[in-house]
């Protein structure tokens, strides 16, 4: 199957390893991956910060870029959630119904990585090996916007050598929230400190998630405090064949 990788701007610019891992994983499973070069950003930050007017051109670019492909996969539930739920709404509210319809059609074949693996490919054991103590931060948008449910956990449980531990209060927000982390820095930090406590309580070596944005936030706290626990994208674990 040919898969267009919706890399997301954050992965492209700051966390290419999550994108490389997604490519490696999908190719290992026998699929052809393409990276449409016209892609930039889905516009989520602009939409959620109150600038849907500025996001409209980004939505149009996203839809035009990915429209030719049968399947679009992103290593980010948050960006998939934006494309699926916000693109049609914003386009419609700003009067571009044609774009809204196109966005809706594209959204129907746009998947978060865990959805794509479990629902479309029908695999939970992707042949990975990762001999580390890992805890999953399920992420708010994975759980409550895209509703991936336990798909990431099912994928992780099938990884060889993994010591998977559940952190307390796993479904609680880490406090990132996009510009919230800057506009309400103090509240965001208070939420992060509780999330770090829960990660450290289960003595995880690695915290993983399906979104680099939450991981960037959690990693920022983990490294600031020199905890020795690292943040790794789900795709990197699933792509791994170490040990």
């Amino acid at each position, binding site marked *: 199957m040919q898969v267009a990788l919706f890399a997301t701007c954050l992965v492209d610019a*700051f966390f290419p390893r999550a994108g*490389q891992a997604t490519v490696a994983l999908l190719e290992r499973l026998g699929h052809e991956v393409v990276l449409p*070069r016209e892609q930039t950003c889905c516009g989520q930050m602009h939409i*959620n*910060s109150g600038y849907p*007017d500025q996001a409209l051109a980004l939505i149009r670019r996203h839809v035009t870029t990915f429209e030719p492909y049968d399947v679009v996969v992103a290593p980010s539930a948050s960006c998939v959630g934006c494309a699926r739920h916000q693109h049609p709404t914003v386009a419609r509210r700003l009067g571009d119904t044609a774009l809204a319809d196109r966005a809706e059609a594209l959204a129907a074949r746009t998947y978060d990585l865990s959805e794509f693996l479990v629902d479309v490919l029908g695999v939970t054991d992707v042949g990975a090996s990762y001999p580390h103590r890992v805890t999953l931060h399920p992420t708010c948008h994975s759980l409550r916007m895209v509703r991936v449910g336990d798909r990431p956990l099912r994928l992780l449980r099938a990884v060889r050598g993994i010591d998977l531990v559940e952190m307390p209060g796993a479904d609680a*927000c880490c406090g990132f929230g996009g510009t919230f982390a800057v506009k*309400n820095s103090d509240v965001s930090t208070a*939420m992060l400190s509780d999330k770090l406590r829960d990660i450290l309580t289960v003595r995880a070596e690695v915290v993983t998630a399906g979104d680099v944005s939450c991981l960037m936030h959690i990693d920022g*706290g983990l490294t600031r405090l020199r905890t020795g626990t690292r943040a790794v994208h789900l795709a990197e674990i699933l792509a791994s064949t170490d040990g």
Partner: protein
Amino acid sequence: MTFLGMPTAPRGVGRLRGDAPFPVAARAALTDTQLRRNIGHATETIRARRAALVAEMPDWEQLRRAGEAIKADTLARLPEVLVQLEEQVTAAGGTVHWARDAIEANAIVTSLVQATGADEVVKIKSMVTQEIGLNEALAAAGITAHETDLAELIVQLGHDRPSHIVVPAIHRNRTEIRDIFRRAMPGVRPDLTDDPPQLAEAARTYLRRKFLSARVAVSGANFAVAETGTVVIVESEGNGRMCLTLPEVLITVMGIEKVIPTFADLEVFLQLLPRSATGERMNPYTSMWTGVTAGDGPREFHLVLLDNGRTATLADPDGRAALHCIRCGACLNVCPVYERVGGHAYGSVYPGPIGAVITPQLTGVADNPDLPFASTLCGACFDACPVRIDIPSMLVHLRARAVASKGASLERGVFGAIAWTLRSPRRFSAAIRLARLGRLLGRRRDRISRLPWPLSRWTVARDAPRPPRQSLREWWRSRPTKPGAGE
């Protein structure tokens, strides 16, 4: 001067505006470690109770959808439903008053109390009378209002403000309550301990005298049934039942969105509300009354229908579902922001996620531009809401209105520049190359520990990622074999 044309809906006035912007008030609240402990403990307890009781309901999702549908239908034909309510209440011997805003409502209630000659009233816990600042308005007219709900009494005696829609003293623990009672409750025993039965007994003794002497009671309303003119109060302590039956005159203030069309609609809401609000299958006291009944209960009944920004809210198709709210507080109990800062930081009497969408709509978003941003959009509120109010989407919608109300700003310029960059893959690639200079900042630890304002608000507590040597698109181009062209 007045002009002909479309009438404008009044803006909400009353206790809907705080003294400080949310981020500032929240920062102060975060330093109150006792408050964080009290609220963290209380919300965790209610969350667990609610979750257990919702899980035992096989038709919970259908009930939520039914609640949503009834509210949407009611709002779609609000004028006719309200007029029907007025007719039925009047036919049953009650008197209906219409108040455009808090000032009018307070004036109506004050004059009604003055007409009885009473100088004190007993009150049932009500959000709407908190919204309009009724106690303060009555005090200005020489009338003392006595709160009879235990938590509202704690708030009132402590010269405090409610911090939760259902549990107004959630920010207080029992030791603090003992101190407030010892300090401010007339006739309290000086050796009062913080044992909950002792605290309840002290309040009961104090309040019993008020119930027996008061001639006027003031309440809010959980529901008002248009087809019968029946008003409904749901409560836990029995103080409401005392207020609704003992005094001679009963004055009920309700927001116009509290009306429901039929008595059968209560079937849905009386299942949704107690489970969501207090984690109970059924609340201990549900009182319903229809006008006045000779020889039974109050001889006079007044119903004050309050707008105070609700019609303006109804005018916005993307925001009007906020009026579906049945004031259960479930969204507060699951909100990670509320859990850490408490209710006072929101400024308005309506805190938490629902407060962040109701308050700016009642006052106009320009008066509360920070509240729609007081959320990470984590979505826990939507999942907990018994009438399926999509609070996260509404917050996003209100953010756009808040930004628009500010017009040109430095922030708009910055976002515009970012959007301009992202509109072209070439400019985006150039920006990535430029950001790579940031690698210098992260030499020592492979992380960046300090960035200039406004990103300093990130690095104050968190490291920032060091830009990688190669972006994903650069790596893609450098791949030796490309099975898919993708160009």
